[in-house]
């Protein structure tokens, strides 16, 4: 019997479990390659040519080239690997994270300064549906 995934009920969250890790293996190893300065240089010089060297799916490539971080996460990317792409683009971590939330970086920062995203209304997809 398959293992249950009770965490799939958590809103707005993708858990980096075995299935996601398998899906994102090459994507995450591609991100790791950006730890080396010479690879960062080559990537920035021609991003498409560089990603084409990796066995990535079209959606994974699209996520990288369009800096669509949610798409990267959906396609098996893990945040700590994805962070190498933020650093390659010299994008501050908090600002990069804000782009995943549908908020502007200013709105996101204001939310964090006022105590962060509240747990109320963000605990459970089922509970939220029950409220309607």
């Amino acid at each position: 019997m398959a293992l249950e995934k009770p965490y799939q009920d958590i809103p707005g969250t993708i858990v980096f479990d075995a299935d996601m890790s398998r899906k994102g293996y090459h994507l995450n190893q591609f991100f790791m390659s950006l730890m080396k300065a010479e690879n960062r240089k080559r990537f920035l010089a021609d991003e498409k040519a560089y990603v084409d060297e990796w066995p990535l799916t079209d959606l994974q490539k699209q996520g990288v080239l369009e800096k669509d971080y949610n798409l990267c996460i959906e396609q098996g990317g893990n945040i700590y690997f994805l962070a190498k792409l933020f650093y390659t683009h010299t994008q501050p971590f908090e600002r990069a994270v804000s782009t995943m939330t549908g908020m502007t970086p200013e709105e996101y920062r204001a939310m964090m300064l006022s105590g962060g995203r509240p747990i109320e209304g963000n605990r459970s997809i089922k509970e939220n549906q029950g409220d309607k």
Partner: protein
Amino acid sequence: MARISSAVFSSHIPAVGAAIDLGTTGNEYWSPVFKGFEYSKKWQADNTPDVIILVYNDHASAFDLRVVPTFGIGCSEEFESADEGWGPRPIPPVQGHPDLAWHIAQSVILDSFDMTICNDFKVDHGLTVPLSLMFGQPEAWPCRVIPFMVNVIQYPPPTGRRCFELGKALRKAVELFDEDLNVHIWGTGGMSHQLQYKRAGLINREWDLNFMNTLINDPEELTKITHPEYIRDAGSEGIELVMWLIARSALGSQVDEKHRFYHVPASNTALGHLILEKAGN
């Protein structure tokens, strides 16, 4: 005989390390964070141990998806600061304690905890930011450090129960070491935070404060928290808090609280910090 006399708990946020390295700790955003560590630095200077066992996680710096050890222990003489993509932090190298590290590895493996022995790797912000918070910016770290890694990135991390039991085995291992060493154990990471996807920015203050209280007074109770509960209540990255259970149980049940601090936000994260001494120390 060696003994574990104190435990320190702290978040290990990279932006906090950057604030120290760039000298921006006094600005409006960061000064409340560093005020919370003023007592800690004094306490640490008065209570410098011989060795710190520093429980942390690597963030795709030394380890990538090729090999994912659930528990790893650093057994070599020295560990340099990793280049995480913006150059290595300007800090001294960490001096290990191979005698004690190898002793612990053997002892806990024979106690049924299957550690991965790690000799050649660099340490990232997970280890170095707490060191900077407690010791400031010395030319050399004033004590030896054994890096103790836990996988909390690839789901599932080890359970809270497993971490708690490992802490006991660590305490036993340290007490079996012949040399008279004063050892501290640090648990790092947390507290509530989520760095990814649409729920990013989640903070759960009430849950965090309750976790700190229970960690001090009834830590075994925390072993009942399941992984989905950690992720739901403390965010996808808040699950790092299982690492605090290793350090807490390694200290033993009766403790004196020396310091407690909690602050939101530090970048995307709720910063939590505790100093506990073994009771009657």
